[in-house]
């Protein structure tokens, strides 16, 4: 068992490493956050990870908040702040310094190849996120039906996703998904 300082340091190092490979945003590294929090460090369980992800989606804001909640689970409010900063600060600095230089060669062949090459890998990771989360969350056929319905609505329509989340939470509250 590590002391609190040890856990905070561990959170900082792990989320800094994660952020640097988070091409395509936080959803692409959900499998790695899951591996870290559930399999490696046992900060949470598979089922609870799905609930934390649900809470992250129930609050407005960027997808990055799953890291906030994993930090919270590992070490309370200080953990939440450390994980969020570690997930954002290094890439913010990188973005700040790269943005001017990048503009000069973004439209060159190298720039286009980098962008075109990273996209498929990122897409595969987001697919993997979807698989892992669904495996943790859909413990009954009714819940699986909610997932499929939400996926179809969000994929094919421009409806605000908030309505899907609210409807699903309402169905759960009414006991219709048990």
């Amino acid at each position, binding site marked *: 068992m590590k002391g609190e300082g040890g856990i905070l340091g561990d959170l900082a190092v792990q989320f800094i490493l994660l952020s640097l490979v988070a091409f395509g945003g936080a959803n692409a590294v959900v499998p790695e956050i899951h591996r870290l929090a559930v399999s490696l460090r046992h900060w949470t369980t598979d089922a609870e990870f799905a609930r934390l992800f649900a809470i992250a989606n129930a609050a407005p804001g960027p997808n990055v*908040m799953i890291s906030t909640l994993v930090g919270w689970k590992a070490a309370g409010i200080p953990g*939440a702040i450390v994980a969020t900063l570690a997930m954002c600060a290094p890439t913010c600095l990188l973005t700040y310094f790269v943005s001017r230089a990048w503009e000069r060669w973004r439209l060159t062949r190298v720039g286009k190849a980098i962008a075109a090459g990273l996209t498929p890998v990122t*897409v595969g990771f987001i*697919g993997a996120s979807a698989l892992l989360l669904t495996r943790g969350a859909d413990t009954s056929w009714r819940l699986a039906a909610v997932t499929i319905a939400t996926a179809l609505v969000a994929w094919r329509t421009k409806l605000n996703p908030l309505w*899907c989340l609210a409807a699903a939470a309402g169905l759960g509250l009414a006991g219709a998904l048990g």
Partner: protein
Amino acid sequence: MEYAESSQNESPGPAALFNAFLTVGLSGFGGVLPFARRMLVERRRWLDEAQFNETLALCQTLPGPNIVNVSIVVGARFAGPTGALAAVTGLLGAPVALVLVLATFYGRWGNEGRAPAMLAGLGAAACGLVIATALKMAWPVVRARPISAAPFVAVAFAAVGLLRLPLVWVVLALAPLSIAVAWSRRA
């Protein structure tokens, strides 16, 4: 980044940047990019459509949450380091505080009464949103480059989703290969 000098409005300061990104951060559920576009292009007119797309392309190529990177680039463009800090603080501050309030409720009452059932429903819907994001992103890539890109989508998915390999190693193995293929395809 270089933008046309003929911006419709004068340059916003840190306070205006903070306010704009605060609104953006609080308006979106399951990702806030569409709201950022609406705010920056349609409402404040700080960027035109092409400038926004360029900024987004840059931010998607760099690691890190895309929208957080957008706030940095836009903030820095209009008000330097202070502007970048103001924009990113506006974007993240309120949502992080709010999610921690929810987490505290969850910690105290998450296992009582109907709360687990409600969270289960919410979780199932949240998964559906991620599946939709994956489909929306995969569809154009697979259709435009079925031979040079689709295998990388499949291998990345299988390596991380099915085999549970560490993502860092998968990135280091796949990304250079995928970039090399994209490079040779344009030769």
